[in-house]
């Protein structure tokens, strides 16, 4: 690929490259030919799930003993990059399944919950979603009003609603975050596994999206949902638990955004070299070269940021604030690159036959979810000044 301008491949192990190549091949063969139509039709290509499971992308950085691939975090990041080179919706599916549904079960679940769910989720037989955001509580999840009350027999009754839930209507299980026993403090937040079909649990597709159209985004409603005592994730406690999941997902998103940017840059470069205007390829004009040079520069910088972040994560020294910097920067540059690529493509750039406008529209969601760009600014602001601008 022409995007590896700094030979960053040489900083990857043979195994990391092999993982990337395998997923790249899958995306080239199976995602790129069909994704434009799925985007127009507004549904996720569910038939890709068994193939992705066979490849091993779900929870790929979780241990082999739970049926996962046991990859390091750089290899995991490269998977996210390649999936999002296809489409942010496809990457979102894998992010939610791995980082937001499997990870909390792995990190906070009982051994019995891990054995019951993780291998089946790695095989793609059980799809999960993650319910944290509520209609009135997005950037401040600590204000959530969803409440679980423990009954005398140790079982739970759950009430509330969650919104903007990726995979919400597809999922077989929802990992739902709720305050407990009437305590309004975010310290009372616990995680619950809610299987589809549980009485009182309904989901509804969110209609009218102009972004992430090849992805299931749903609203979840819980009305007097009775859950057994073993539905709770015993290790979860406080807002910190779901935020740990978000750190995992945001890490993957920082890589994924690079994939979308690479796809747009490659498309723009190829188009510029072949599109003739005023008797020569538009790539020969300074204004397009400036565009391409900017895109390439930002991609290289983002690649280096995520690669080093991955090495820190593997070393166990990565901080959530570093993840904020990477997510904020990489998604931001990807949105700019997608828009510039679309412009370079002229009128053709508005067609679904080309990928840039699809990525451009998708990335507006990626810019907004998993901590908006602005929230990450405040996290960084707090990290460097010691002053909390949230309150």
């Amino acid at each position: 690929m022409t995007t590896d301008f700094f030979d960053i491949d040489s900083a990857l192990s043979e195994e990391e490259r092999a993982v990337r190549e395998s997923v790249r091949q899958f995306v080239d063969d199976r995602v790129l030919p069909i994704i434009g139509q799925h985007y127009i039709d507004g549904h996720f290509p569910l038939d890709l799930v068994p193939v992705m499971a066979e490849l091993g992308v779900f929870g790929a950085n979780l241990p082999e003993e739970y049926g996962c691939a046991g990859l390091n975090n750089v290899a995991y990041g490269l998977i996210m990059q390649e999936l999002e080179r296809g489409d942010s919706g496809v990457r979102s599916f894998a992010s939610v399944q791995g980082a937001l549904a499997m990870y909390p079960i792995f990190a906070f679940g009982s051994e019995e919950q891990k054995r019951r769910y993780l291998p089946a989720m790695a095989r793609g037989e059980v799809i999960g979603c993650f319910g944290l955001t509520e209609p009135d509580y997005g950037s401040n999840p600590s204000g959530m009003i969803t409440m679980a009350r423990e009954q005398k027999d140790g079982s739970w009754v759950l009430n509330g609603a969650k919104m903007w839930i990726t995979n919400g209507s597809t999922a077989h299980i929802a990992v739902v975050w709720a305050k407990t026993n009437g305590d309004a403090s975010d310290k009372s937040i616990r995680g619950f596994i809610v299987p589809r079909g549980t009485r009182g649990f309904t989901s509804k597709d969110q209609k009218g999206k102009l972004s992430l159209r090849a992805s299931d985004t749903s609203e979840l409603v819980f009305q007097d949902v009775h859950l057994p005592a073993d539905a709770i994730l015993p290790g979860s406690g406080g807002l910190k638990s779901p935020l740990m999941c978000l750190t995992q997902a945001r890490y993957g998103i920082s890589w994924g955004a690079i994939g979308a940017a690479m796809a747009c840059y490659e498309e723009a470069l190829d188009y510029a070299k072949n599109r003739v205007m005023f008797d020569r390829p538009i790539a020969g004009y300074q204004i397009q070269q400036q565009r391409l040079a900017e895109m390439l520069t930002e991609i290289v910088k983002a690649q280096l940021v995520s690669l080093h972040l991955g090495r820190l994560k593997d070393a166990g020294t990565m901080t959530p604030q570093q993840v904020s910097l990477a997510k904020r920067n990489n998604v931001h540059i990807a949105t700019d690159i997608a828009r510039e690529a679309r412009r370079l493509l002229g009128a053709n750039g508005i067609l679904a036959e080309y990928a840039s406008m699809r990525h451009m529209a998708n990335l507006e969601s990626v810019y907004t979810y998993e901590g908006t760009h602005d929230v990450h600014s405040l996290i960084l602001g707090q990290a460097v000044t010691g002053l909390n601008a949230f309150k």
Partner: protein
Amino acid sequence: MNIAVCIKRVPDMESRFRIAGSGVGIDEAGLKFDISDFDAYAVEVALQLNEKAGAGEVTVICLGPDVVQEIIRKALSMGAAKGVHLKADAVPADSLAIAKALAAELKDGGYDLLLFGKHSLDAMTGGAGTMVAQLLGLPCLTAASRLEITDGKAVARRELEGAAESLTFALPAVVTIDEGIARPRYPSLKGIMAAKKKPLETRPAQLGDARVTVDKMALPAERPAGRIIGTGPDAVPELVRLLQTEAKVL
């Protein structure tokens, strides 16, 4: 079944090639390499035959410098059990030299079936498989588009111009594989992890004397730019004349 598959490392044929400074090969800088397509089909066929039989082992063999270990490990990550790297500074241009090295390795391996791609994507000589069969005195079947083995009986299909033939043959045998027979699987991420722990033996290739060498490699001449003969019906007679006399296509 005990199956050996001989594979070759080749550059991505969609690349823009440059001639190396030596003038007798390509400049490998910046090129992406992989298992030659027909060889990858052969690996897939071998894996499927053993999966269907529920038993057996696939060994992949590759000749060349140390860099070929990367494609051996790719075959291992697809599911082959072990790899053999026959180390040589370069892959010779003489198919017989290659075949002798492969035959020396394969001779006492106890293999039931030796698979090759029908030819490599880069050199396209298609010699190694048939020559190994000759050297080992084994039956040889080329360009198989289907291969089935039941109870030790092997049946293969070959595509001919406007027809197809079905052949039965005895094992052990050499079969070279055509396209369309099987779509190579993606190495799974677990497979990639597992490949690290699989045995990969390296030994010097016992190359025969190379009696064929490359003297010179050249890129095809640049195509001359198109020429506008004229416009409208008046230009047709001249166009037809040039197509007959100059382009010689009519």
